[in-house]
Protein backbone atom coordinates (compact mmCIF):
# COMPACT_ATOMS: atom_id res chain seq x y z
CA UNK A 1 0.00 0.00 0.00
CA UNK A 2 1.17 3.41 -0.69
CA UNK A 3 1.19 4.44 2.86
CA UNK A 4 1.81 8.12 2.53
CA UNK A 5 -0.27 9.68 5.22
CA UNK A 6 -3.22 11.75 4.27
CA UNK A 7 -1.72 14.64 2.42
CA UNK A 8 -1.32 18.11 3.82
CA UNK A 9 -4.19 19.46 1.89
CA UNK A 10 -6.43 16.75 3.21
CA UNK A 11 -5.09 17.21 6.68
CA UNK A 12 -6.49 20.67 6.80
CA UNK A 13 -9.90 19.38 6.02
CA UNK A 14 -9.56 16.44 8.30
CA UNK A 15 -12.56 17.57 10.20
CA UNK A 16 -14.70 16.76 7.20
CA UNK A 17 -13.12 13.40 6.50
CA UNK A 18 -14.80 10.32 7.78
CA UNK A 19 -13.10 7.02 8.39
CA UNK A 20 -15.23 4.11 7.39
CA UNK A 21 -14.25 0.60 8.20
CA UNK A 22 -15.49 -1.74 5.52
CA UNK A 23 -15.34 -5.39 6.41
CA UNK A 24 -14.33 -7.99 7.27
CA UNK A 25 -17.94 -8.99 7.69
CA UNK A 26 -19.36 -7.06 4.83
CA UNK A 27 -21.35 -8.41 1.93
CA UNK A 28 -18.84 -7.29 -0.65
CA UNK A 29 -15.70 -8.20 1.23
CA UNK A 30 -15.85 -11.92 0.49
CA UNK A 31 -15.71 -12.73 4.12
CA UNK A 32 -12.25 -11.75 5.12
CA UNK A 33 -11.09 -8.60 3.47
CA UNK A 34 -11.05 -5.36 5.28
CA UNK A 35 -10.52 -1.91 3.93
CA UNK A 36 -10.19 1.09 6.14
CA UNK A 37 -11.26 4.00 4.03
CA UNK A 38 -10.99 7.67 4.66
CA UNK A 39 -13.73 9.35 2.77
CA UNK A 40 -14.70 12.83 1.95
CA UNK A 41 -18.43 12.50 1.61
CA UNK A 42 -18.61 9.51 -0.68
CA UNK A 43 -15.26 10.10 -2.31
CA UNK A 44 -12.39 7.99 -1.14
CA UNK A 45 -9.34 9.88 0.01
CA UNK A 46 -7.45 6.87 1.17
CA UNK A 47 -8.19 3.21 1.30
CA UNK A 48 -5.94 0.97 3.27
CA UNK A 49 -6.60 -2.72 2.88
CA UNK A 50 -5.83 -4.88 5.81
CA UNK A 51 -5.34 -8.54 5.23
CA UNK A 52 -4.46 -11.55 7.29
CA UNK A 53 -7.92 -12.45 8.46
CA UNK A 54 -7.55 -15.78 6.76
CA UNK A 55 -3.90 -16.33 7.46
CA UNK A 56 -3.84 -20.00 8.29
CA UNK A 57 -0.12 -20.57 8.21
CA UNK A 58 -0.15 -22.62 5.04
CA UNK A 59 3.52 -22.03 4.37
CA UNK A 60 4.50 -23.11 7.83
CA UNK A 61 2.25 -26.11 7.49
CA UNK A 62 4.01 -27.00 4.26
CA UNK A 63 7.22 -27.37 6.21
CA UNK A 64 5.77 -29.97 8.50
CA UNK A 65 3.82 -32.02 5.98
CA UNK A 66 5.31 -34.28 3.38
CA UNK A 67 5.30 -33.20 -0.23
CA UNK A 68 2.40 -35.48 -0.90
CA UNK A 69 0.39 -34.34 2.07
CA UNK A 70 0.67 -30.75 1.03
CA UNK A 71 -1.41 -31.28 -2.10
CA UNK A 72 -4.77 -31.02 -0.31
CA UNK A 73 -3.60 -27.89 1.42
CA UNK A 74 -3.04 -26.22 -1.92
CA UNK A 75 -6.70 -26.84 -2.67
CA UNK A 76 -7.56 -24.38 -0.02
CA UNK A 77 -5.60 -21.50 -1.45
CA UNK A 78 -7.71 -20.28 -4.30
CA UNK A 79 -10.74 -22.34 -3.57
CA UNK A 80 -12.59 -21.10 -6.61
CA UNK A 81 -10.18 -22.96 -8.85
CA UNK A 82 -8.47 -25.48 -6.64
CA UNK A 83 -7.19 -27.54 -9.54
CA UNK A 84 -4.89 -24.82 -10.81
CA UNK A 85 -3.27 -24.63 -7.40
CA UNK A 86 -2.76 -28.36 -7.26
CA UNK A 87 -1.18 -28.44 -10.66
CA UNK A 88 1.00 -25.46 -9.93
CA UNK A 89 2.35 -27.06 -6.80
CA UNK A 90 2.84 -30.40 -8.46
CA UNK A 91 4.66 -28.76 -11.30
CA UNK A 92 7.01 -27.10 -8.88
CA UNK A 93 7.85 -30.36 -7.16
CA UNK A 94 8.15 -32.15 -10.47
CA UNK A 95 10.53 -29.50 -11.64
CA UNK A 96 12.53 -29.93 -8.49
CA UNK A 97 12.74 -33.64 -9.03
CA UNK A 98 13.20 -33.44 -12.76
CA UNK A 99 10.17 -35.51 -13.56
CA UNK A 100 8.71 -35.43 -17.01
CA UNK A 101 4.94 -35.79 -16.84
CA UNK A 102 3.42 -37.97 -19.58
CA UNK A 103 1.63 -36.08 -22.29
CA UNK A 104 -1.73 -37.58 -21.67
CA UNK A 105 -1.63 -36.52 -18.06
CA UNK A 106 -0.71 -33.04 -19.16
CA UNK A 107 -3.72 -32.95 -21.43
CA UNK A 108 -6.03 -34.01 -18.63
CA UNK A 109 -4.47 -31.34 -16.51
CA UNK A 110 -5.13 -28.76 -19.17
CA UNK A 111 -8.73 -29.81 -19.51
CA UNK A 112 -9.33 -29.68 -15.80
CA UNK A 113 -7.44 -26.44 -15.31
CA UNK A 114 -9.42 -24.73 -18.00
CA UNK A 115 -12.65 -25.97 -16.47
CA UNK A 116 -11.47 -24.56 -13.19
CA UNK A 117 -10.66 -21.31 -14.92
CA UNK A 118 -14.17 -21.09 -16.27
CA UNK A 119 -15.58 -21.83 -12.84
CA UNK A 120 -13.41 -19.16 -11.28
CA UNK A 121 -14.29 -16.53 -13.83
CA UNK A 122 -17.93 -17.37 -13.47
CA UNK A 123 -17.82 -16.74 -9.77
CA UNK A 124 -15.89 -13.55 -10.28
CA UNK A 125 -18.22 -12.13 -12.90
CA UNK A 126 -21.26 -13.27 -11.00
CA UNK A 127 -20.11 -11.68 -7.79
CA UNK A 128 -19.20 -8.53 -9.61
CA UNK A 129 -22.76 -8.40 -10.84
CA UNK A 130 -24.14 -9.01 -7.37
CA UNK A 131 -22.00 -6.31 -5.91
CA UNK A 132 -23.21 -3.87 -8.49
CA UNK A 133 -26.80 -4.79 -7.80
CA UNK A 134 -27.49 -7.12 -10.73
CA UNK A 135 -28.30 -10.37 -9.02
CA UNK A 136 -29.69 -12.40 -11.84
CA UNK A 137 -26.58 -13.13 -13.95
CA UNK A 138 -24.95 -14.62 -10.90
CA UNK A 139 -27.61 -17.26 -10.73
CA UNK A 140 -27.38 -18.07 -14.41
CA UNK A 141 -23.65 -18.49 -14.14
CA UNK A 142 -23.68 -20.48 -10.98
CA UNK A 143 -25.88 -23.15 -12.50
CA UNK A 144 -23.27 -23.79 -15.12
CA UNK A 145 -20.60 -23.82 -12.48
CA UNK A 146 -22.59 -26.46 -10.70
CA UNK A 147 -22.33 -28.57 -13.85
CA UNK A 148 -18.58 -28.05 -13.94
CA UNK A 149 -18.41 -29.18 -10.35
CA UNK A 150 -20.30 -32.25 -11.36
CA UNK A 151 -17.55 -33.09 -13.83
CA UNK A 152 -14.98 -32.62 -11.08
CA UNK A 153 -16.99 -34.75 -8.75
CA UNK A 154 -17.20 -37.59 -11.22
CA UNK A 155 -13.55 -37.24 -11.91
CA UNK A 156 -12.26 -37.81 -8.43
CA UNK A 157 -14.99 -37.40 -5.94
CA UNK A 158 -14.94 -33.85 -4.69
CA UNK A 159 -16.66 -30.75 -5.89
CA UNK A 160 -14.48 -27.96 -4.75
CA UNK A 161 -11.30 -29.09 -3.10
CA UNK A 162 -10.40 -31.71 -5.61
CA UNK A 163 -6.93 -32.76 -4.56
CA UNK A 164 -6.37 -33.17 -8.24
CA UNK A 165 -3.39 -35.05 -9.55
CA UNK A 166 -0.37 -36.39 -7.82
CA UNK A 167 3.25 -35.49 -8.04
CA UNK A 168 4.35 -36.94 -11.33
CA UNK A 169 0.97 -37.27 -12.93
CA UNK A 170 -2.57 -38.08 -12.07
CA UNK A 171 -4.44 -40.41 -9.81
CA UNK A 172 -7.28 -41.07 -12.19
CA UNK A 173 -8.16 -40.92 -15.82
CA UNK A 174 -10.94 -38.79 -17.19
CA UNK A 175 -14.26 -40.49 -16.52
CA UNK A 176 -15.85 -42.26 -19.44
CA UNK A 177 -18.79 -39.95 -19.53
CA UNK A 178 -16.70 -36.83 -19.72
CA UNK A 179 -17.29 -36.37 -23.41
CA UNK A 180 -21.00 -36.57 -23.02
CA UNK A 181 -21.04 -34.19 -20.10
CA UNK A 182 -18.83 -31.73 -21.85
CA UNK A 183 -20.95 -31.85 -24.97
CA UNK A 184 -23.96 -31.03 -22.84
CA UNK A 185 -22.22 -28.39 -20.84
CA UNK A 186 -20.59 -26.45 -23.63
CA UNK A 187 -23.68 -24.88 -25.20
CA UNK A 188 -25.08 -24.17 -21.77
CA UNK A 189 -21.92 -22.38 -20.76
CA UNK A 190 -22.03 -20.31 -23.89
CA UNK A 191 -25.69 -19.55 -23.36
CA UNK A 192 -25.14 -18.46 -19.79
CA UNK A 193 -22.30 -16.21 -20.85
CA UNK A 194 -24.40 -14.80 -23.60
CA UNK A 195 -27.24 -14.08 -21.22
CA UNK A 196 -24.89 -12.43 -18.81
CA UNK A 197 -23.59 -10.24 -21.59
CA UNK A 198 -27.10 -9.45 -22.62
CA UNK A 199 -28.07 -8.38 -19.15
CA UNK A 200 -24.96 -6.40 -18.46
CA UNK A 201 -22.57 -5.45 -21.20
CA UNK A 202 -24.59 -2.92 -23.13
CA UNK A 203 -26.73 -1.79 -20.28
CA UNK A 204 -25.87 1.81 -19.73
CA UNK A 205 -26.15 1.57 -15.99
CA UNK A 206 -23.58 -1.19 -16.05
CA UNK A 207 -21.34 0.71 -18.42
CA UNK A 208 -21.50 3.83 -16.31
CA UNK A 209 -20.69 1.85 -13.26
CA UNK A 210 -17.73 0.05 -14.75
CA UNK A 211 -16.13 2.00 -17.57
CA UNK A 212 -13.39 4.23 -16.30
CA UNK A 213 -13.70 3.00 -12.77
CA UNK A 214 -10.38 2.28 -11.09
CA UNK A 215 -8.50 2.50 -14.36
CA UNK A 216 -4.85 1.64 -14.27
CA UNK A 217 -2.00 2.27 -16.64
CA UNK A 218 0.14 -0.62 -17.90
CA UNK A 219 3.34 0.84 -16.48
CA UNK A 220 1.85 1.13 -13.02
CA UNK A 221 0.36 -2.29 -13.33
CA UNK A 222 3.71 -3.89 -14.13
CA UNK A 223 5.43 -1.96 -11.42
CA UNK A 224 2.90 -3.17 -8.92
CA UNK A 225 3.36 -6.72 -10.10
CA UNK A 226 0.00 -7.24 -11.72
CA UNK A 227 -0.55 -10.43 -13.62
CA UNK A 228 -3.46 -12.20 -15.19
CA UNK A 229 -6.72 -10.66 -16.33
CA UNK A 230 -6.10 -7.48 -14.39
CA UNK A 231 -2.85 -6.90 -16.25
CA UNK A 232 -4.33 -7.87 -19.57
CA UNK A 233 -7.16 -5.45 -18.99
CA UNK A 234 -4.51 -2.71 -18.85
CA UNK A 235 -3.42 -3.66 -22.34
CA UNK A 236 -0.37 -5.78 -21.66
CA UNK A 237 -0.53 -8.98 -23.60
CA UNK A 238 1.04 -11.29 -21.12
CA UNK A 239 -0.15 -14.79 -20.46
CA UNK A 240 2.08 -17.45 -19.02
CA UNK A 241 0.28 -20.01 -21.10
CA UNK A 242 1.73 -18.33 -24.15
CA UNK A 243 4.87 -16.72 -22.82
CA UNK A 244 6.31 -19.44 -20.62
CA UNK A 245 4.37 -22.28 -21.95
CA UNK A 246 3.75 -25.37 -19.87
CA UNK A 247 1.53 -28.40 -20.08
CA UNK A 248 1.52 -28.37 -23.88
CA UNK A 249 -0.27 -25.04 -24.04
CA UNK A 250 1.83 -24.17 -27.07
CA UNK A 251 -0.10 -26.71 -29.09
CA UNK A 252 -3.43 -25.04 -28.65
CA UNK A 253 -4.78 -22.23 -30.66
CA UNK A 254 -6.28 -19.56 -28.48
CA UNK A 255 -6.38 -15.82 -28.17
CA UNK A 256 -5.21 -13.75 -25.27
CA UNK A 257 -7.71 -10.96 -24.83
CA UNK A 258 -6.45 -7.55 -23.84
CA UNK A 259 -8.28 -4.49 -22.68
CA UNK A 260 -7.52 -0.85 -23.10
CA UNK A 261 -8.14 1.10 -19.96
CA UNK A 262 -7.55 -1.41 -17.25
CA UNK A 263 -10.85 -0.49 -15.66
CA UNK A 264 -13.53 -2.68 -14.19
CA UNK A 265 -15.29 -3.04 -17.49
CA UNK A 266 -12.17 -4.26 -19.24
CA UNK A 267 -11.48 -6.76 -16.51
CA UNK A 268 -14.99 -8.03 -16.79
CA UNK A 269 -14.76 -8.22 -20.54
CA UNK A 270 -11.37 -9.95 -20.48
CA UNK A 271 -12.77 -12.55 -18.17
CA UNK A 272 -15.79 -13.10 -20.37
CA UNK A 273 -13.63 -13.62 -23.44
CA UNK A 274 -11.23 -15.85 -21.54
CA UNK A 275 -14.06 -18.16 -20.68
CA UNK A 276 -14.83 -18.53 -24.35
CA UNK A 277 -11.16 -19.18 -25.11
CA UNK A 278 -11.03 -21.76 -22.37
CA UNK A 279 -13.88 -23.60 -23.99
CA UNK A 280 -11.88 -23.68 -27.19
CA UNK A 281 -8.81 -24.96 -25.41
CA UNK A 282 -10.76 -27.74 -23.77
CA UNK A 283 -12.11 -28.80 -27.13
CA UNK A 284 -8.67 -28.96 -28.64
CA UNK A 285 -7.15 -30.66 -25.65
CA UNK A 286 -9.86 -33.24 -25.59
CA UNK A 287 -9.32 -33.95 -29.26
CA UNK A 288 -5.64 -34.54 -28.62
CA UNK A 289 -6.53 -36.61 -25.61
CA UNK A 290 -8.78 -38.80 -27.70
CA UNK A 291 -5.98 -39.44 -30.15
CA UNK A 292 -3.79 -40.85 -27.42
CA UNK A 293 -3.90 -44.58 -26.89
CA UNK A 294 -6.20 -45.65 -24.13
CA UNK A 295 -3.42 -47.16 -22.07
CA UNK A 296 -1.01 -44.30 -22.48
CA UNK A 297 0.70 -43.58 -19.19
CA UNK A 298 -0.83 -41.01 -16.91
CA UNK A 299 1.89 -40.92 -14.37
CA UNK A 300 5.63 -40.72 -14.43
CA UNK A 301 7.68 -43.11 -12.41
CA UNK A 302 7.89 -41.55 -9.03
CA UNK A 303 9.47 -43.00 -5.92
CA UNK A 304 7.04 -43.97 -3.24
CA UNK A 305 8.48 -41.54 -0.81
CA UNK A 306 9.09 -38.24 -2.44
CA UNK A 307 12.46 -36.89 -1.51
CA UNK A 308 13.59 -34.29 -3.97
CA UNK A 309 17.27 -33.51 -4.10
CA UNK A 310 18.58 -30.42 -2.38
CA UNK A 311 17.77 -27.36 -4.34
CA UNK A 312 15.23 -24.69 -4.91
CA UNK A 313 12.99 -23.94 -7.79
CA UNK A 314 10.31 -21.48 -8.66
CA UNK A 315 7.61 -22.60 -10.97
CA UNK A 316 4.60 -20.61 -12.03
CA UNK A 317 1.55 -21.04 -14.13
CA UNK A 318 -1.32 -18.92 -15.28
CA UNK A 319 -4.05 -19.32 -12.75
CA UNK A 320 -7.39 -17.61 -13.36
CA UNK A 321 -6.12 -14.66 -11.38
CA UNK A 322 -2.66 -14.46 -12.83
CA UNK A 323 0.74 -15.84 -12.14
CA UNK A 324 0.48 -18.43 -9.41
CA UNK A 325 3.94 -19.50 -8.43
CA UNK A 326 5.38 -21.93 -5.97
CA UNK A 327 8.88 -21.53 -4.63
CA UNK A 328 9.97 -24.82 -3.16
CA UNK A 329 13.24 -25.42 -1.40
CA UNK A 330 14.19 -28.91 -0.49
CA UNK A 331 16.79 -30.03 1.99
CA UNK A 332 16.68 -33.58 0.76
CA UNK A 333 14.18 -34.85 3.25
CA UNK A 334 10.60 -35.85 2.60
CA UNK A 335 9.31 -32.51 3.77
CA UNK A 336 9.80 -29.25 2.01
CA UNK A 337 12.22 -26.91 3.68
CA UNK A 338 10.40 -23.83 2.58
CA UNK A 339 7.37 -23.35 0.45
CA UNK A 340 6.51 -19.90 -0.66
CA UNK A 341 3.40 -19.27 -2.60
CA UNK A 342 3.16 -16.34 -4.90
CA UNK A 343 -0.54 -15.67 -5.05
CA UNK A 344 -1.58 -13.47 -7.94
CA UNK A 345 -4.16 -11.40 -6.15
CA UNK A 346 -1.72 -10.59 -3.38
CA UNK A 347 0.24 -8.40 -5.75
CA UNK A 348 -2.86 -6.95 -7.28
CA UNK A 349 -4.54 -6.16 -4.02
CA UNK A 350 -1.57 -4.26 -2.63
CA UNK A 351 -2.16 -1.57 -5.22
CA UNK A 352 -5.67 -1.12 -3.93
CA UNK A 353 -5.16 2.38 -2.64
CA UNK A 354 -3.89 3.52 -6.00
CA UNK A 355 -6.73 1.78 -7.72
CA UNK A 356 -9.58 3.37 -5.85
CA UNK A 357 -8.24 6.72 -4.73
CA UNK A 358 -10.56 9.44 -5.86
CA UNK A 359 -13.37 7.07 -6.70
CA UNK A 360 -16.52 6.62 -4.71
CA UNK A 361 -17.46 4.01 -2.18
CA UNK A 362 -19.63 2.19 -4.68
CA UNK A 363 -16.63 1.99 -7.00
CA UNK A 364 -14.52 0.51 -4.28
CA UNK A 365 -16.93 -2.36 -4.15
CA UNK A 366 -16.89 -2.75 -7.90
CA UNK A 367 -13.12 -2.63 -7.94
CA UNK A 368 -12.63 -5.18 -5.22
CA UNK A 369 -14.89 -7.69 -6.88
CA UNK A 370 -13.39 -7.13 -10.30
CA UNK A 371 -9.92 -7.89 -8.95
CA UNK A 372 -11.24 -11.24 -7.80
CA UNK A 373 -9.41 -11.19 -4.54
CA UNK A 374 -9.67 -14.63 -3.03
CA UNK A 375 -8.84 -14.51 0.62
CA UNK A 376 -7.57 -18.06 0.70
CA UNK A 377 -4.64 -17.35 -1.52
CA UNK A 378 -4.25 -13.79 -0.40
CA UNK A 379 -3.56 -14.62 3.21
CA UNK A 380 -2.53 -18.25 2.84
Amino acid at each position, binding site marked *: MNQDPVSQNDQERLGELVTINIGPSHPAMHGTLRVVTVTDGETIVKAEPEIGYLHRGVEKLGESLTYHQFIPITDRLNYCSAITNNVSYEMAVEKL*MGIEVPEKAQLVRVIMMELARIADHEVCVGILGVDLGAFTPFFYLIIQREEIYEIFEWYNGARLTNTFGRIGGLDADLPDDFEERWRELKPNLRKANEETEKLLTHNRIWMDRTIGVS*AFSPEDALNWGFTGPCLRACGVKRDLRKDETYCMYDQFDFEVPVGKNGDVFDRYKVRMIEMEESIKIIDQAYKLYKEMPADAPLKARVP*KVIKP*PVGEVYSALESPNGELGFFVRSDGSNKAYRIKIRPPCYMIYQAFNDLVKGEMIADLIACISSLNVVAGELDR
Partner: protein
Amino acid sequence: MAKPVVKKEYTLGERIYLLEILKGMALTWRHFVFNVKASFRPEPHTVPTCWQYPEDRTREISPIFRGLHMLCLDEKGREKCIACGTCAKTCPAHCITVKKGKRKEGEEDKYASKMYCASFDIDLLHCIFCGFCQEACPKEAIVLGREFELAQYTREECHLDKQKLLANYRKAKEEGKLRPPRKAVPVVKPPPKPEAGAPKTTEGKAGKPAVAGKAKKGQVEVKKAAEKAKGAGKAESGD
Protein backbone atom coordinates in the same frame (compact mmCIF):
# COMPACT_ATOMS: atom_id res chain seq x y z
CA MET B 1 -3.27 6.39 -9.66
CA ALA B 2 -6.21 6.16 -11.89
CA LYS B 3 -5.22 7.19 -15.33
CA PRO B 4 -7.45 9.17 -17.64
CA VAL B 5 -9.72 6.93 -19.55
CA VAL B 6 -10.64 6.86 -23.16
CA LYS B 7 -14.37 6.95 -22.75
CA LYS B 8 -16.12 4.67 -25.09
CA GLU B 9 -18.66 6.33 -27.31
CA TYR B 10 -22.05 5.06 -26.37
CA THR B 11 -24.42 4.20 -29.13
CA LEU B 12 -27.83 5.78 -29.06
CA GLY B 13 -29.39 2.56 -27.86
CA GLU B 14 -27.00 2.46 -24.97
CA ARG B 15 -27.39 6.12 -24.29
CA ILE B 16 -31.09 6.12 -23.57
CA TYR B 17 -31.00 3.29 -21.03
CA LEU B 18 -34.42 1.95 -21.83
CA LEU B 19 -33.67 -0.17 -24.87
CA GLU B 20 -31.14 -2.37 -23.16
CA ILE B 21 -33.19 -2.53 -20.02
CA LEU B 22 -36.14 -3.76 -22.04
CA LYS B 23 -33.97 -6.36 -23.71
CA GLY B 24 -32.79 -7.55 -20.34
CA MET B 25 -36.35 -7.63 -19.10
CA ALA B 26 -37.33 -9.77 -22.04
CA LEU B 27 -34.62 -12.21 -21.05
CA THR B 28 -35.67 -12.44 -17.44
CA TRP B 29 -39.26 -12.76 -18.57
CA ARG B 30 -38.37 -15.78 -20.69
CA HIS B 31 -36.71 -17.39 -17.71
CA PHE B 32 -39.68 -16.53 -15.56
CA VAL B 33 -42.22 -18.06 -17.89
CA PHE B 34 -40.13 -21.15 -18.41
CA ASN B 35 -39.68 -21.70 -14.71
CA VAL B 36 -43.27 -20.99 -13.81
CA LYS B 37 -44.35 -23.55 -16.36
CA ALA B 38 -41.76 -25.95 -15.09
CA SER B 39 -42.82 -25.48 -11.50
CA PHE B 40 -46.13 -27.15 -12.27
CA ARG B 41 -44.44 -30.33 -13.30
CA PRO B 42 -44.86 -33.25 -10.95
CA GLU B 43 -43.01 -32.86 -7.68
CA PRO B 44 -40.35 -32.89 -6.49
CA HIS B 45 -37.91 -32.02 -9.28
CA THR B 46 -39.85 -29.24 -10.88
CA VAL B 47 -37.60 -26.44 -12.01
CA PRO B 48 -34.82 -28.22 -13.87
CA THR B 49 -32.05 -26.18 -12.30
CA CYS B 50 -33.14 -26.56 -8.72
CA TRP B 51 -32.91 -29.68 -6.65
CA GLN B 52 -35.36 -29.50 -3.78
CA TYR B 53 -32.93 -31.30 -1.66
CA PRO B 54 -34.56 -33.12 1.23
CA GLU B 55 -37.32 -34.49 -0.98
CA ASP B 56 -35.72 -34.42 -4.36
CA ARG B 57 -32.68 -36.61 -4.48
CA THR B 58 -32.60 -36.94 -8.22
CA ARG B 59 -29.23 -35.35 -8.41
CA GLU B 60 -26.84 -38.22 -8.71
CA ILE B 61 -23.93 -38.32 -6.35
CA SER B 62 -20.80 -39.58 -7.98
CA PRO B 63 -20.08 -43.20 -7.00
CA ILE B 64 -16.58 -42.16 -6.08
CA PHE B 65 -17.68 -39.22 -3.99
CA ARG B 66 -15.47 -38.76 -0.98
CA GLY B 67 -17.93 -38.83 1.84
CA LEU B 68 -18.32 -40.70 5.07
CA HIS B 69 -15.64 -43.21 5.95
CA MET B 70 -16.21 -46.91 6.34
CA LEU B 71 -14.16 -49.93 7.25
CA CYS B 72 -14.66 -52.68 4.74
CA LEU B 73 -15.23 -56.34 5.33
CA ASP B 74 -14.12 -58.94 2.87
CA GLU B 75 -16.41 -61.49 1.20
CA LYS B 76 -16.43 -63.70 4.24
CA GLY B 77 -17.42 -60.85 6.46
CA ARG B 78 -14.02 -60.49 8.04
CA GLU B 79 -12.38 -57.21 8.76
CA LYS B 80 -9.85 -56.31 6.17
CA CYS B 81 -7.91 -53.81 8.22
CA ILE B 82 -4.48 -54.96 9.33
CA ALA B 83 -3.81 -51.94 11.50
CA CYS B 84 -0.67 -51.03 9.65
CA GLY B 85 -1.25 -47.37 10.38
CA THR B 86 -0.46 -46.18 6.89
CA CYS B 87 -3.65 -44.20 6.73
CA ALA B 88 -2.85 -42.46 9.98
CA LYS B 89 0.58 -41.54 8.69
CA THR B 90 -0.69 -40.31 5.38
CA CYS B 91 -3.52 -38.22 6.72
CA PRO B 92 -2.64 -34.55 6.38
CA ALA B 93 -5.05 -33.62 9.10
CA HIS B 94 -3.88 -36.34 11.51
CA CYS B 95 -7.41 -37.31 12.29
CA ILE B 96 -7.01 -41.09 12.30
CA THR B 97 -5.92 -43.11 15.30
CA VAL B 98 -5.40 -46.82 14.97
CA LYS B 99 -4.61 -49.27 17.72
CA LYS B 100 -3.24 -52.66 16.92
CA GLY B 101 -4.62 -55.89 18.17
CA LYS B 102 -3.37 -59.39 17.68
CA ARG B 103 -5.72 -62.00 16.42
CA LYS B 104 -6.30 -64.76 18.90
CA GLU B 105 -7.08 -68.35 18.19
CA GLY B 106 -10.60 -68.85 16.99
CA GLU B 107 -11.04 -65.36 15.65
CA GLU B 108 -10.20 -66.22 12.09
CA ASP B 109 -13.76 -65.64 11.03
CA LYS B 110 -13.64 -62.14 12.38
CA TYR B 111 -10.37 -60.77 11.15
CA ALA B 112 -8.78 -61.42 7.81
CA SER B 113 -5.18 -61.16 8.87
CA LYS B 114 -3.10 -61.73 11.93
CA MET B 115 -3.20 -58.18 12.97
CA TYR B 116 -6.38 -56.26 13.29
CA CYS B 117 -7.33 -52.89 14.57
CA ALA B 118 -8.39 -52.97 18.16
CA SER B 119 -9.74 -49.50 17.76
CA PHE B 120 -10.05 -47.23 14.81
CA ASP B 121 -11.03 -43.64 15.47
CA ILE B 122 -11.63 -40.90 13.01
CA ASP B 123 -12.30 -37.37 14.08
CA LEU B 124 -14.72 -36.30 11.40
CA LEU B 125 -14.45 -32.70 12.38
CA HIS B 126 -10.80 -32.66 11.51
CA CYS B 127 -11.05 -34.80 8.42
CA ILE B 128 -10.70 -32.94 5.15
CA PHE B 129 -11.93 -35.78 2.95
CA CYS B 130 -8.89 -35.74 0.72
CA GLY B 131 -9.08 -39.48 0.18
CA PHE B 132 -5.43 -40.11 0.94
CA CYS B 133 -6.25 -42.76 3.51
CA GLN B 134 -8.11 -44.93 1.07
CA GLU B 135 -5.40 -44.39 -1.48
CA ALA B 136 -2.70 -45.41 0.92
CA CYS B 137 -4.48 -48.37 2.40
CA PRO B 138 -2.81 -51.56 1.19
CA LYS B 139 -5.87 -53.69 1.86
CA GLU B 140 -8.58 -51.34 0.69
CA ALA B 141 -9.96 -51.49 4.15
CA ILE B 142 -10.75 -47.86 4.74
CA VAL B 143 -12.89 -46.31 2.08
CA LEU B 144 -14.69 -43.03 1.74
CA GLY B 145 -18.31 -43.74 1.00
CA ARG B 146 -21.01 -41.81 -0.72
CA GLU B 147 -22.78 -40.65 2.42
CA PHE B 148 -22.65 -36.88 2.65
CA GLU B 149 -25.27 -35.91 5.20
CA LEU B 150 -22.98 -35.55 8.10
CA ALA B 151 -24.39 -32.72 10.16
CA GLN B 152 -24.68 -33.41 13.87
CA TYR B 153 -25.82 -31.55 16.94
CA THR B 154 -22.78 -32.23 19.06
CA ARG B 155 -19.10 -32.72 18.70
CA GLU B 156 -19.22 -36.20 20.16
CA GLU B 157 -21.51 -37.47 17.46
CA CYS B 158 -18.95 -36.49 14.88
CA HIS B 159 -16.48 -38.93 16.28
CA LEU B 160 -16.32 -42.17 14.31
CA ASP B 161 -15.22 -45.24 16.17
CA LYS B 162 -14.75 -48.71 14.79
CA GLN B 163 -18.31 -49.79 15.37
CA LYS B 164 -19.68 -46.84 13.49
CA LEU B 165 -17.25 -47.36 10.66
CA LEU B 166 -18.30 -50.97 10.27
CA ALA B 167 -21.94 -49.98 10.51
CA ASN B 168 -21.37 -47.47 7.74
CA TYR B 169 -20.04 -50.27 5.60
CA ARG B 170 -23.00 -52.50 6.27
CA LYS B 171 -25.40 -49.73 5.54
CA ALA B 172 -23.69 -48.84 2.30
CA LYS B 173 -23.65 -52.47 1.28
CA GLU B 174 -27.33 -52.77 1.96
CA GLU B 175 -28.08 -49.74 -0.14
CA GLY B 176 -25.72 -50.87 -2.85
CA LYS B 177 -23.65 -47.75 -2.50
CA LEU B 178 -20.27 -49.34 -2.23
CA ARG B 179 -17.48 -47.54 -3.92
CA PRO B 180 -16.39 -49.18 -7.16
CA PRO B 181 -12.83 -50.46 -7.08
CA ARG B 182 -10.25 -47.96 -8.16
CA LYS B 183 -8.91 -48.17 -11.64
CA ALA B 184 -5.15 -48.38 -11.84
CA VAL B 185 -3.46 -45.48 -13.50
CA PRO B 186 -1.04 -46.52 -16.19
CA VAL B 187 2.47 -45.52 -15.23
CA VAL B 188 5.37 -44.81 -17.54
CA LYS B 189 7.03 -48.10 -18.42
CA PRO B 190 10.27 -48.79 -16.60
CA PRO B 191 12.63 -50.42 -19.15
CA PRO B 192 14.21 -47.45 -20.91
CA LYS B 193 16.47 -46.83 -17.98
CA PRO B 194 18.21 -43.68 -19.18
CA GLU B 195 14.95 -41.81 -19.63
CA ALA B 196 13.57 -42.46 -16.22
CA GLY B 197 16.79 -42.24 -14.36
CA ALA B 198 18.78 -39.77 -16.39
CA PRO B 199 17.58 -36.43 -15.12
CA LYS B 200 17.90 -37.57 -11.58
CA THR B 201 21.40 -38.89 -11.65
CA THR B 202 22.93 -36.20 -13.76
CA GLU B 203 21.26 -33.17 -12.36
CA GLY B 204 20.44 -34.34 -8.92
CA LYS B 205 22.93 -32.88 -6.57
CA ALA B 206 24.30 -34.43 -3.47
CA GLY B 207 20.83 -35.38 -2.32
CA LYS B 208 20.11 -39.04 -2.48
CA PRO B 209 19.16 -39.71 -6.08
CA ALA B 210 15.52 -40.44 -5.94
CA VAL B 211 15.24 -44.08 -6.67
CA ALA B 212 12.41 -44.92 -8.90
CA GLY B 213 10.63 -48.09 -8.09
CA LYS B 214 12.17 -50.83 -5.98
CA ALA B 215 10.20 -49.78 -3.02
CA LYS B 216 10.88 -51.84 0.02
CA LYS B 217 8.20 -54.21 1.10
CA GLY B 218 5.98 -52.74 3.73
CA GLN B 219 7.24 -49.27 3.23
CA VAL B 220 4.85 -46.47 3.89
CA GLU B 221 3.18 -45.90 0.62
CA VAL B 222 2.17 -42.44 -0.06
CA LYS B 223 1.87 -42.84 -3.76
CA LYS B 224 0.28 -44.96 -6.38
CA ALA B 225 -2.53 -46.27 -4.38
CA ALA B 226 -4.02 -47.22 -7.64
CA GLU B 227 -1.96 -50.32 -7.91
CA LYS B 228 -3.54 -52.23 -5.18
CA ALA B 229 -6.67 -53.17 -6.97
CA LYS B 230 -6.65 -56.79 -6.05
CA GLY B 231 -3.12 -57.98 -5.64
CA ALA B 232 -1.01 -55.50 -3.84
CA GLY B 233 1.88 -57.87 -4.01
CA LYS B 234 1.70 -58.16 -7.74
CA ALA B 235 1.89 -54.46 -8.28
CA GLU B 236 4.83 -54.15 -6.01
CA SER B 237 6.78 -56.88 -7.70
CA GLY B 238 5.93 -55.31 -11.03
CA ASP B 239 7.64 -52.20 -9.95
